[in-house]
C-alpha cells in the first residue's frame, strides 16, 4: 500500500463499518466500510457535516467502542481497548472536576508508575508548556474554557502518546480563544511531531491546521476524498494568503454538498 | 401494545419471585411460620377480613381521612403559594411561618393533634392537612414565581385584570410544579395517616394492623400491612397517570 510515500502508517483503518443502535428506534448505519491510513507524524483532519460519523470513527480508533466490522491497526497491534499510546482530547474537556489542574495532569503519570519526583517534574513541564503556570492548584470549575482545554491537552500530552485523537477540541470555545488555541496547538505539534487525528466541521480550521484532510460524506459516512493541505509555512499570516483562501473555497465546495445532504436536501 | 404489556410483566417478575420464595420458605419450614405466616394463609386472612367488613370499614375511614386532609392541603396550599408568589403583603406575612415550619418533621405534630383533637377523625385530618400543606405551598410558590413575565405582560396588555391574570395565566403556568408537589404530598399523607393510626386511633387501617398484631392474628396483620403498602403504591401510580394526562401540553 505504499503510494510513493516512505512514511509508515501509524493508524490503518480497514473496511470499518459501524451501526448505531438507539435505545428506541431503528438501527442506523453510521459508517460504511471506511478505509483510511493515517501516516506517522502527520496531522490529519476528519472533516464533514454533523452526523457523518467522524467522531464515531475517532472513538473507534481510540478503542472506546467495540469494532464490529472491519479492523483498525495501530502499528502492529489491532485496537481493542483504550491505551496510553492514543491520547484523547474532547470538546468538553472531560477534566476530572474534583481534581486540581496538577492532579489531573498527574493522573496518567501515576498510572505509568513513574517515580514521584519524575511525575511532578513532568507534570510541571507540561503545565508550563500549555502556559498554565500559576494555576496548578485551581479546580476546573475556576478556569475559563480556553484554560480548561489547555489543562486537558497538558494531561493528555503528559503521558507522551504517539497518537493524539482530538474531537472538535475547540468547538466549545469562543472565536478569539479558538484562534489562539489553534496557533498554540500548531506550535506544540511542530515541536513534538505527534500523529494527530483532528475531528472538525470547520473547514477553515481543517485547512489551517492539517496536512491532509479526509472529507467525509453525510451519513452513512464514507471517505469522499482526501485533500492535501500543506503549505510553505503555517502561521497566522497564512489566513490571508490567496493560496489558503482558494484551498478553503475548494474544500468547502466538497463539504457543501454533503452538508446539504445531511440536512435532508439535494445539492 | 402487547409488547409493552409483556415488558411490564417481565419488569415486575422479581416481585413474583419474592412471593414464591416466601411461600416456599415458610412451607418448607426454612422461615419460621411464627415469624412469617405462609403467603396463602395471609391471602386467606385477607379475604376473611374483606368478607367480615373489617377491611372495608377501616379502609374507608382511613381513605376518607387522607382524602379530606389532602384535599384541603392541596387547595389551601396551592392558593397560598400562588398568592405568596405574586402579592407582597401575603408573602411578608406567611414567609416566616413557612420558614419556621419547614424543618419541623410533620410526624412530630402527632402528639399535639392527639392532645387537641383526641383519638378520632379530626386529629388525623388536621395532621394531614397541616403536614401536606407545606410541600404544596412551596411548589406552588416556586411554580408561580417561575411563570414567565412575558406571559403576564401579554395578558395585561390584552386587558386582563389582576384577578384574571392570577387564575388564567399564573395558575396554569405553575401547574407542573404544583402537580409535582402534590405527588410528594400524597406519599406524605399516607405516612402521616398510618403513623397516627398506629399510635393513636380507634379505627382505620393503622389501627386494624395494631389490633390484629396485639391479638396474635399475624396472617391478618400481614394482610393489612400489604394492603396499606399496596394502596400507597397504587395511589402514586394512579396519580402519575393523571398527572401525565393533565400535563400533555407540556410534552
Amino acid at each position: 500500500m505504499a503510494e510513493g510515500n516512505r512514511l509508515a502508517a501509524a493508524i490503518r483503518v480497514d473496511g470499518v463499518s459501524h451501526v448505531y443502535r438507539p435505545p428506541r428506534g431503528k438501527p442506523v448505519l453510521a459508517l460504511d466500510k471506511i478505509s483510511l491510513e493515517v501516516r506517522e507524524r502527520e496531522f490529519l483532519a476528519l472533516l464533514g457535516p454533523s452526523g457523518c460519523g467522524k467522531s464515531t470513527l475517532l472513538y473507534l480508533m481510540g478503542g472506546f467502542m467495540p469494532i464490529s466490522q472491519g479492523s483498525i491497526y495501530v502499528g502492529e497491534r489491532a485496537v481493542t481497548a483504550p491505551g496510553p499510546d492514543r491520547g484523547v482530547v474532547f470538546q468538553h474537556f472531560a477534566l476530572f472536576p474534583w481534581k486540581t489542574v496538577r492532579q489531573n495532569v498527574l493522573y496518567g503519570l501515576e498510572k505509568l508508575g513513574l517515580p514521584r519526583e519524575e511525575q511532578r517534574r513532568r507534570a510541571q513541564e507540561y503545565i508550563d508548556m500549555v502556559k498554565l503556570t500559576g494555576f496548578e492548584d485551581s479546580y476546573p470549575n475556576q478556569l475559563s474554557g480556553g484554560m480548561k482545554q489547555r489543562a486537558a491537552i497538558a494531561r493528555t500530552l503528559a503521558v507522551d502518546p504517539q497518537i493524539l485523537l482530538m474531537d472538535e477540541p475547540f468547538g466549545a470555545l469562543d472565536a478569539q480563544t479558538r484562534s489562539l488555541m489553534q496557533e498554540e496547538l500548531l506550535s506544540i505539534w511542530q515541536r513534538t511531531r505527534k500523529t494527530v487525528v483532528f475531528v472538525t466541521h470547520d473547514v477553515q480550521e481543517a485547512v489551517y491546521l492539517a496536512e491532509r484532510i479526509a472529507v467525509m460524506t453525510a451519513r452513512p459516512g464514507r471517505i469522499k476524498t482526501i485533500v492535501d493541505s500543506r503549505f510553505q509555512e503555517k502561521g497566522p499570516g497564512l489566513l490571508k494568503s490567496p493560496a489558503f483562501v482558494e484551498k478553503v473555497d475548494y474544500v468547502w465546495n466538497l463539504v457543501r454538498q454533503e452538508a446539504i445532504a445531511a440536512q435532508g436536501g439535494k445539492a | 401494545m402487547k409488547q409493552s404489556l409483556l415488558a411490564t410483566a417481565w419488569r415486575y417478575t422479581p416481585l413474583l419471585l419474592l412471593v414464591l420464595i416466601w411461600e416456599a420458605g415458610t412451607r418448607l419450614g426454612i422461615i419460621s411460620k411464627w415469624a412469617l405466616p405462609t403467603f396463602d394463609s395471609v391471602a386467606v386472612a385477607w379475604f376473611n377480613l374483606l368478607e367480615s367488613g373489617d377491611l372495608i370499614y377501616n379502609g374507608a375511614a382511613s381513605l376518607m381521612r387522607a382524602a379530606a386532609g389532602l384535599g384541603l392541603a392541596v387547595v389551601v396550599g396551592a392558593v397560598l403559594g400562588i398568592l405568596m408568589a405574586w402579592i407582597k403583603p401575603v408573602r411578608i406575612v406567611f414567609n416566616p411561618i413557612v420558614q419556621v415550619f419547614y424543618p419541623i418533621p410533620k410526624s412530630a405534630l402527632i402528639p399535639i393533634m392527639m392532645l387537641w383533637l383526641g383519638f378520632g377523625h379530626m386529629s388525623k385530618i388536621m395532621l394531614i392537612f397541616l403536614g401536606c400543606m407545606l410541600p404544596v405551598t412551596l411548589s406552588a410558590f416556586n411554580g408561580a414565581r417561575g411563570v414567565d413575565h412575558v406571559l403576564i405582560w401579554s395578558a395585561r396588555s390584552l386587558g386582563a385584570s389582576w384577578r384574571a391574570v392570577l387564575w388564567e395565566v399564573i395558575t396554569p403556568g405553575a401547574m407542573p410544579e404544583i402537580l409535582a408537589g402534590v405527588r410528594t404530598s400524597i406519599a406524605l399523607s399516607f405516612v402521616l395517616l398510618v403513623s397516627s393510626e398506629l399510635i393513636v386511633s380507634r379505627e382505620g387501617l393503622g389501627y386494624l394492623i395494631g389490633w390484629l398484631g396485639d391479638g396474635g392474628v399475624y396472617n391478618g396483620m400481614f394482610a393489612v400491612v400489604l394492603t396499606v403498602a399496596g394502596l400507597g403504591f397504587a395511589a402514586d401510580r394512579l396519580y402519575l397517570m393523571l398527572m401525565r394526562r393533565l400535563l400533555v401540553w407540556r410534552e
Partner: protein
Amino acid sequence: MSEARALPGKAAEPRTDEGRAMSISGVAAQILIRSGSVIALLIGWELLARSGAFTTFLLPPLSLVLERVWDDVTSGALVVNLGLTLYRAAVGFAVAAVGGIILGVLIARIPFVHWLFDPIVSVGFPMPKIAFLPVFMLWFGLYDVSKISMVIFDSIFPVIAATVAGTQAVENQLVWSARSLGAKDRAVLWEIVMPAALPQILTGLQIALPIALIVTIVCEMLMGGEGLGGAMIQSSRFADSPGVFAGIFEIAIAGWAVIKGQEWVRRKLLVWHQETQSVATM
C-alpha cells in the same frame, strides 16, 4: 486574575443568595431581616397565648415552653432522650448509607442485579413503609433493633435511588479519558465513577438523614420508652401540653442542627463543585 464574575448557567440550589461576596454589614442585615419575621412570629405566639383567647392547655405561652425546655436541659432529660434518639437514627442511617451505596452501585452496573431490584425499589419508594413497623416489632422485639431496622428500611431507598442515578450519569468521556490515560476497570470505578457520582450520592444521603430522624421518633412514639418520641407521647398521655410543645421545640432544633450540619459537610466535600466567586481569564 480578573474580577468577580459568577459562572452562569449552573443549576440553582434552593435558597442560595449566598453566592456573592458580601460585606459584614450586608450579612448582618440579611440575618436581621430573616430572623426579624421569625422573632415577630415568636412574639406573636407569646402575646396570643397570654391574651386569654386560648387556654394554657391549647396554647401554652412561649415562655412556659422555653422554661420547660430549659428544665429538660438542666435535669439531663434532654441529653438522655436526644442522645438515644440520635444514636438510633445514626446507626440506622449509617447502615442504610453504606448498604444503599453498595447496592446502588451494583444495581447501576450489573444488569442482573438491576433487573432483580428495580421493581422492589420502584414499588417500595411510594409505599408508606412505616406500615411495616408492627412486622419489625414482631420479628425483632420492642427495643432498639426493631426501631433501627425500620430506620434502615425507610432511609435506604433514597440512598439507592441517588446512587443509581449518580453512577449512571457519569459522562462517558470522563471514563474514556481515564481509560486512555491507562486506568483499568477497578481504578475507573473507584477513582472516576465514585467521585463523579459523589454530588448526587450526597444529595441522597441528605434526604435520608432527616428521614432517619423522623422515623426514629415515630417508632419511639409507638413503642414508648425513652427518646424524644417516647417523651413526647408520654407528655400527651398525661395531657402535659407544655411538655408536648417543648418536645416539638427540641425536635425542631435537632432537625435544624442536622440540616445545617449536612450543609457544612457538603460544602467541605464538594469544594470543587461549588460555584466559585471569581473566574480566571487569560
